[in-house]
């Protein structure tokens, strides 16, 4: 594993400076449940997708519009 950080040439706040953080391999591959924060994030994302699918569902065959907002 190697890790390198390229520091900027100056700290002047009036220009964009780029810092590279480079990591190679390593890390933890232990399988574990995701944290409550990430779980809440994933569930919220699923709910957004579910609502989008509801809004964009094809109309029923008889031509009546689906109920709901």
């Amino acid at each position, binding site marked *: 594993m190697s890790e390198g950080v390229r520091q900027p040439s100056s700290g002047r706040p009036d220009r964009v*400076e*780029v810092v590279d953080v480079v990591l190679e391999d390593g890390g*933890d591959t232990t399988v574990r449940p995701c944290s409550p924060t*990430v779980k809440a994030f*994933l569930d919220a994302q699923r709910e957004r997708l579910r609502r989008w699918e509801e809004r964009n569902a094809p109309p029923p065959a008889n031509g009546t519009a689906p109920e709901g907002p």
Partner: protein
Amino acid sequence: MSQRPIALALFLCEQVIVDEETRAVTLVNCFSQRRAAQVPAAPFPFVLVTVLTDGSGEFPVEVQITRLDTDEIVYRREARARFQHPLQEVRFRLRLTSFSFPAACVYEVLFLADGEVVAHRRFEITLSEEQT
């Protein structure tokens, strides 16, 4: 006072080329799906790239790869990122060469700063057709 950064982008790609003179970055073969002959998938090298900005202070940052069929973390990597001022861009690159995806499913790749999700993208491992 510290300020959590925002992410400008998050990509998975096969290769990153950095121009020695200008430090400009070229991402090669960005992808969001890979086919595997079997699972666990044979490791294939790829690079996770994210660009952070609008932060100040030093933060723990973390890459997590989560299976969306079980909500289990299958990979995590921690590091620290330091922002000297909000205009600074931190280009974070993580090259993985030996990680094996354990199942054919959709994964969420998350990048967290100070414990909060600042970037994410979905990524799918599918089995090659002859295996399905």
